[in-house]
């Protein structure tokens, strides 16, 4: 025991010390149990995220090719200078240290960029933190050498080869191909884009968008083991990027070039045409579609004016963006062939004629008088060919002459019959849809519009949506004016589908709307013995190894449901449009070797308010064994026979090797405003 003079106090005090010591040790044990056993999982994750870095490398995007294998879009390797944000910038987006500051300064000098510009690009939130941020793409070889040879002066800077989209054919098929752009913040949140990272490129329109999942490929992913100074110690896993698949389209490159050229030349030449009223045709815009008559494959598709997809690479410039959205530019980004909705005018008469026969208003050979005018409810509807009664006509003749009154009378009779029913089945809507109007044709391009087949239900809904506005406007209009009367009538009775509406719709006017593609598809069905095929641009998808991944088979969307006789009479009428001396399209095909290659077609001149009418022409050839359907629409291009028909003729002449597009000349047809 301790000193003899002491009492029990040293032992007591030693016990106190022992208790203190045990308490401290217990605290350590408890803390270790908590950290390692109770919450250890969390720290395992943290340790992994500490030591593992994911580096993503872009997969080369697939090419888009024409049917013959020519590339419409491909990838070109471009030299790029990239930098690692984590090495150079801190969390606040400022240079991490003095060394980083010096590297940034050197980089700015090398690339001739502002110091702040380098930091801005490096810190761009649109870029993924998991891979080097490209500071400049398409740099000259010397710049790459400079960085590589003096890597110690450029810590965190890398040289890489990035795939850049290239358009060997320039603006050719720009609306079909579409363009790509960096993924947006909103899209990154979209579940559809879960495996995308900031800075990824994504198809923004056209085939680039609709075949995004095939073209994109799978990005490479390297899992690196790094130490606290971000030095790479090991590669834990390395998945090489898998290049995207190529898309081979149904586009006939030669025909596509011809279509674009002939559409543009035709539209621009037509502006020299002086109308009967002395005005020149404005012909502001237009589009053309050529389909394979048997399969529905899109052979060519053009929209005028067009744009240059190369301008979208690396972000759109301010100037070009302004140009694109200027009103005088007439929306060059819109693919009018599928996203232009126009009244179809007389090209709709095939569908409306079939509807009247289906409704039992007339037989295929039954006739109606082609009178000069027709009166409904105090309003006079005139035939386009003012003031002459052309005598009795059957469907064939009515198509050949594009006789409006033939359709007026039938539509009016049909309207009356439908009015008598409680819940009428509207023949025009039912048959119109079979022809492909008023609905999507499921084309493999984004932005395809449905057009419109109006009827009773549509009118009612339209009125309900606009009634309040019309009533207010009627109140505001001056007392006793025609305008007020009209608005008041609309306000009160606007929900009624009237005889005049039915009459207007029968000739593709009024509230009927259609895209050029729908018109082409409806004539494709007529040419294809009544079977409507799904229009498609994709033909097959080919893997990077050249193996076919997927064949896009032609697919029937439906049948016109017409008697053979009805179809025969209709085709007879369409052939007569071009091949009979009195046909409305005859003048435009003067000199075309119709004896060897018979052509069937239809003119259309769609009224659009006070503006110059829209010119339509659709044709299929050879008429006896159709292989191609071509439609052309020219906005404010005057009569169908005048502007659209000669363009179709030139396209057909190119296709059948009669006159090559380069040698073709635009010769306006007769001004027939059917």
């Amino acid at each position, binding site marked *: 025991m301790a000193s003899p003079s002491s009492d029990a106090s040293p032992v007591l005090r030693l016990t106190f010390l022992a208790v203190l*010591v045990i308490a*401290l040790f217990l605290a350590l044990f408890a803390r270790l149990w908590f950290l390692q056993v109770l919450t250890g999982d969390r720290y395992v994750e943290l340790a992994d995220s500490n030591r593992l870095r994911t580096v993503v490398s872009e997969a080369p995007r697939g090419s888009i090719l024409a049917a013959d294998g020519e590339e419409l879009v491909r990838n070109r390797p471009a030299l790029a200078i990239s930098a690692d944000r984590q090495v150079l910038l801190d969390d606040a987006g400022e240079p991490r240290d003095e060394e980083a500051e010096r590297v940034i300064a050197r980089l700015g000098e090398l690339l001739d960029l502002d110091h702040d510009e380098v930091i801005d690009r490096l810190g761009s939130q649109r870029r993924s933190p998991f891979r080097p941020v490209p500071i400049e793409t398409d740099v000259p070889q010397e710049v790459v050498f400079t960085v590589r040879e003096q890597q110690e002066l450029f810590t965190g800077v890398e040289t890489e080869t990035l795939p850049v989209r290239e358009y060997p054919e320039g603006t050719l098929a720009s609306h079909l191909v579409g363009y790509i752009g960096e993924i947006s913040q909103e899209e990154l949140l979209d579940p559809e884009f879960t495996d995308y990272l900031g800075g990824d490129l994504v198809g923004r329109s056209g085939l680039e968008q609709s075949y995004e999942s095939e073209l994109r490929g799978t990005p490479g992913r390297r899992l690196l083991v790094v130490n606290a100074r971000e030095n790479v110690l090991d590669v834990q896993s390395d998945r090489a990027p898998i290049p995207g698949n190529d898309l081979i389209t149904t586009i006939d490159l030669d025909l596509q070039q011809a279509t674009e050229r002939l559409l543009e030349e035709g539209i621009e030449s037509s502006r020299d045409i002086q109308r009967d009223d002395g005005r020149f045709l404005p012909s502001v815009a237009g589009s053309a579609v050529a389909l394979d008559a048997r399969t529905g494959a899109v052979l060519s598709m053009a929209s005028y004016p067009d744009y240059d997809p190369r301008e979208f690479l690396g972000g759109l410039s301010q100037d070009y963006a302004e140009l694109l959205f200027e009103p005088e530019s007439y929306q060059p980004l819109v693919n009018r062939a599928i996203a232009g909705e126009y009244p179809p005018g007389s090209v709709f008469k095939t569908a409306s004629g079939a509807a009247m026969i289906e409704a039992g208003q007339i037989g295929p050979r039954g006739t109606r008088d082609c009178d000069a005018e027709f009166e409904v409810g105090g309003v006079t509807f005139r035939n386009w060919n003012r003031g002459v009664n052309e005598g009795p006509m059957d469907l064939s003749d009515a198509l050949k002459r594009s006789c409006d009154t033939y359709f007026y009378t039938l539509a009016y009779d049909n309207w009356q019959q439908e009015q008598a029913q409680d819940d009428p089945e509207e023949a025009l809507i039912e048959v119109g849809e079979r022809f492909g109007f008023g609905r999507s044709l499921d084309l493999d391009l984004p932005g395809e519009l449905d057009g419109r087949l109006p009827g009773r239900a549509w009118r009612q809904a339209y009125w309900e949506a606009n009634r309040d506005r019309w009533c207010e406007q009627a109140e505001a209009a001056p007392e006793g004016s025609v305008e007020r009367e009209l608005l008041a009538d609309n306000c009160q009775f606007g929900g009624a589908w009237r005889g005049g509406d039915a009459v207007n719709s029968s000739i593709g006017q009024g509230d009927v709307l259609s895209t050029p593609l729908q018109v082409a598809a409806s004539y494709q069905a007529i040419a294809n013995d009544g079977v409507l095929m799904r229009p498609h641009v994709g033909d097959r998808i080919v893997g990077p190894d050249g193996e076919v991944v997927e064949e896009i088979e032609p697919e029937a969307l439906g049948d016109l449901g017409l008697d053979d006789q009805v179809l025969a009479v209709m085709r007879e009428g369409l052939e007569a449009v071009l091949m009979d001396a009195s046909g409305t399209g005859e003048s435009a095909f003067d000199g075309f070797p119709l004896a060897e290659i018979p052509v069937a077609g239809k003119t259309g001149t769609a009224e659009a308010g006070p503006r110059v009418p829209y010119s339509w022409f659709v044709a299929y050839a050879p008429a006896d064994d159709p292989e191609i359907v071509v439609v052309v629409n020219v906005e404010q291009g005057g009569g169908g026979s005048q502007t659209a028909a000669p363009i179709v003729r030139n396209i057909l002449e190119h296709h059948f090797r009669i006159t090559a597009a380069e040698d073709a000349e635009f010769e306006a047809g007769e001004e027939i405003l059917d």
Partner: protein
Amino acid sequence: MEIGYGQDREQRMLRDRVQARWTSTYSPVRHLDPVLVLTALALTGIGLVAIYSAKLVALSSQDLPTTFYVTRQLIALAIGVIAMVLAAIIDYRQVRIYAPALYGIGLILLILTLTPLGTEINGSQRWIVIGGFQLQPSELVKLSVLVTIAALLHESKGAPHIGHVGLSLLLTLVPTGLVFLQPDLGTSLVFIWGTAVLFLIGGVQARYLIGLVVGGIGAIVVGWQQGLVAEYQVSRLTAFLEAADATAAQTAAFQTRQSLIAIGSGQFAGKGLFEGTQTSLSYVPENHTDFIFTVIGEEFGFLGASVVLGLYLVLVWRGLRIAILSKDMFGTLVASGIVAILTLQVFVNVGMTVGLMPVTGLPLPFISYGGTSLIVWFAMIGLLLNVHMRRF
């Protein structure tokens, strides 16, 4: 019955045997405490493995021999064992006589450390380099202050009067101040703690003890307000409390965070020897010295960490037993003082790695890389043996 030569011889032999038994009983060498020595050696062995593991990747990436630190630590161990033997051989009661001299030498070394003779590493001037060996005088002074105060309190025979308490306090605060100037906050706290425990065991009256605690807290508050504590020390101290000022506390917070990740990710059984990623990839700074416990926690898990803490508890148990068995006050004080310093260093060091305590530069006894610390700790084991052997 014939009483002959043989009987006498038997009696003589019996007497010899009894004599021999008595002398052997009292022979100090026969009263070594093998548990104490083996435990200390076991901890040192674990330390060598942990140091090797901590620096394996770093050393091989610098093309240095992977045994660089281990070799140096083994040399220190050899010197430590010699120090332990020396500290055990000389009768500890004689140490009392040499205490003033030990104290004086320690003080001179501390002063020299602060002169240009001292070496500065990481902003702290703690070392004197002698022939390629870095000596850390504050570790030696730990021992000399302990012995000096114990000797002084021994004189007061369990009832120290105010004069002895005052002198002890002064003798503690002078080296404490010098260490604080290096700066080495951790070691200066060890001095104060050691003296406080000696006061407790040495029989200083409760009212003095309470008065000293209150005065000490007052001194800390004043020191804080007067800015005597360097900025980095404040930030290190507050970092584990997740202080609001993120930039100042950033380094300490990073150390603590990485240390927590290392130990936590070891889970129950550990990642296995040399498998610790936090350790080998240098996420935990100073992981062969102050943060060596992270290596043990990461690679050997809760199990391994518990074994290490258990071994320390064995040392504490043997130390307290020696303190109780000691036949004089000086022995009790030395033994309990050693136990107290050991406990404090283990608690502060391990507590720092698990986020219970602020980041201060205190080594983990026997395990952390550092020659002076290892040698001094073996010398302390020697002192414990000394007290133990001479308990009769």
